[in-house]
C-alpha cells in the first residue's frame, strides 16, 4: 500500500518546484551583473554560461535520442 502522505505525493508540488527553479535561475543571471568576469570575449559575456548550458543540455539530449534510435537493440541481443 502506498504512503500518500509523503511530501513527494503532495498536490501542486511540481508547480512549486518549477517556480522555485525559475527563481533560482533568474537570480543566478541577475547575480552575474554584480560580479567581475575573469574571462574575456564570449565566455565573459552576460549570461554566457546560462545559454551555453541550456544549449549543451538540449543538444546532448537530442543527440542521445537520435543515437539510441539508430543503435538500439533488444536487451538479449548478445545472448
Amino acid at each position, binding site marked *: 500500500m502506498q504512503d500518500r502522505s509523503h511530501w513527494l505525493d503532495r498536490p501542486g508540488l511540481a508547480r512549486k518546484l518549477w517556480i522555485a527553479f525559475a527563481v533560482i535561475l533568474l537570480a543566478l543571471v541577475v547575480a552575474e551583473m554584480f560580479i567581475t568576469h*575573469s574571462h574575456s570575449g564570449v565566455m565573459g559575456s552576460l549570461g554566457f554560461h*546560462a545559454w551555453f548550458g541550456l544549449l549543451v543540455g538540449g543538444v*546532448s539530449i537530442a543527440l542521445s535520442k537520435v543515437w539510441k534510435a539508430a543503435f538500439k537493440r*533488444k536487451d538479449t541481443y548478445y545472448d
Partner: protein
Amino acid sequence: MTSVLQHPALILILAGILLPFLRGGARGAVMLAAPVIALALVWILPGGVSLAVPFFGMDLEPIKADKMSRLFGTVFTIMGFAGGLYALTQEKVQELTAAYIYMGFSLGVVFAGDLITVFVFWELMALASVMVIFSSETESARRAGMRYLLVHLLGGVILMAGIAGEVTATGDVGFRSMLPDTLPRALILFGFLLNTGAPPFSSWVPDSYPEASYSGMVFLSAFTTKTAVYVLARGFPGAEILIFVGLFMIFYGIIYGLCENNARKMLGYSIVNQVGFMVTGIGIGTDLAVNGAVAHAFAHIIYKALLIMSVGSVFLMTGKRKFTEYGGLARTMPLTTICCIIGGLSISAFPLTSGFVAKAMMSEAALHEHLTWVWYLLAAGTAGVFLDVGIKLQYFVFFGKDSGLRPPEPPLHMRLAMVLFAILCVAIGVLPGVFYQLLPYAQDYQPYTGAHVIGQAQLLLFSGLAFFLWLRFKGWQLVEALTLDLDWFYRVWGKGMARELVVNAGLARDSIIQDFLNGARATINAVRHFHGPSGVLARSHPTGRMVFWAVAMLAAYLLLDYLLT
C-alpha cells in the same frame, strides 16, 4: 633502507589472503584495519627510492614515493576503508579476498619506480580484478569477466612489448616522464590508455563493472582506471594526443549514459566520461593541468564510489537495476537519496563539492595554454555530466513516477560508508586548501571567485533546465534496449569473422587433404599403369623382340657414326 615489509601493498594482500579464514567480527576488524595501516605506511615511507633490487643487470625500484604516489596511495587506502565498511556483510568471501589483493596490487603500481615493477603489478591487478567480477557467480558475469580479461591481457601484451622495446633502446628501466615519440613508447601509452577506457575499447568498463556484486563494483570503480590515470600523469604529461582521446571519452560517456536504461551500467559510462577529463588534463600537461587531473582522480574515486554505493544499495534492497523498474524510492530511502544527490552534485562540479575545486584547474590550464576550444568542450562536458548523473540518475531512481517499490534503507554499515564519503565530498569542496597541499605541484589557484561560482551554477542548472523542459514538453521515453557500442566489433563482427575463419580454414584444410589424396591416388595409378601386373614396364617381353630392338639401335648408332665422321 626500507624493508619490503613496509610496502603498503603487502598489508592489503595479506589481509586478502587472511579473510577466508576469519569469521564475523574478526573478519570485519581485518577489513577495516588493513586499509588504515596501509594509509599510515603510505605516509611513513620516506621520499624517493627506498628499496632497490638488482634483477638481471637492471635496477628495479619496487618502492619509490613522492607527492603523486602518496596522493594516490592516500585515496586508494581511504577507498579501501570505505569499501570494506560498505562490504562488511558481503557473504562471498572470495570477492573480498580478490578486492583486497586487487587494492594491494594497485598500490604496487603507484609505488613502483621502474617499468618492470609497474608491468608486474599491472597484470596482477587485472587478474585480481577479474576475480571480483567472477565472484558474483552469474553466467553474464562470467562472460563479461572473460571479455574483460581478454581486453586487459591484450593491453598487457602491448604494454610488455613497449617496455621491452624501451628498455632495449635506452638500457633504462626507470619509470620517467616521456613522450610517445618512438614505437615502444607509443605501445606503452596504448597499454596504459587501454586501462582508462579509451577508444576503441571504452566499452569494457560499462560491460564488466555492473556485472560485479553491489559491493564488488565499488572496489572496481576505484583502482584500475585511476591507476591508469596515475601512470599517464607520471609517464606522459603533455602528450598532445591525450587531449583528443580524453575529449572523445567525455562525450562518449555522456551520450551513452543518456541512452542507458541500466543504472549501474550508466555509472560505468560515467567512469569513462570522468576519466576523459583527467586524460585531457594530462594531455594539456602543465603543472596546473596535471594537478587538476590527479586532484580530479582523487575526488572522483570518492564521489563515484558514493554514487555506486547509493545505486548499489538500491540494487541490493530492490533486486532491480533498470530505470524502467525504479522511481519514487526517495520515499523510503531518504538517506541513500541524499548521499546519491551529493555524489551527483560532486561529479557535476557543483560549487561547495569536491568536483568543483578539482575539475576547474584543468579548464583554467586550457585557457592558460590558449586552448580555448578545449575549454569550451570541457565546459560542455561538465554540463553534460550534470544532465546525466546529476539529474537523470536521481530523477528516475528516487523521484519521477512512483514505481510502488518501498525498499528500506540498506544496513547500518553501508549507510555509514555512504555518509563518510558524502562528508568527504563536501569537506574537500568547502576546504580546498588542505586538499591542494596534497597535490604534486605547488600552485596558487583560487576556485572560489564570484565569476567561477556563478558561471558554474548557471552552466549546470541551465543544462538541468534543458532536461526538465524536454521532460515537460516531449516526455522522456525510457527504452528497454541496449545501445550498440564499439564492442560490437569484437562481440559480433569479430566473432563472425572468427567463425568464418574457422569454417574457411576447415574448408581449406579439407581441400588441401583432398588435393593431397587425389595427387597420391594419381601417382599410385600412374605407377600401377606402368609397373602394375599389366603395366608396360612390368610386362615380360619375348627374346626375339628384344634382339630386334638391340639390332635396330646398333644399326642406328653405326649409321649416325658414319654420317657424322
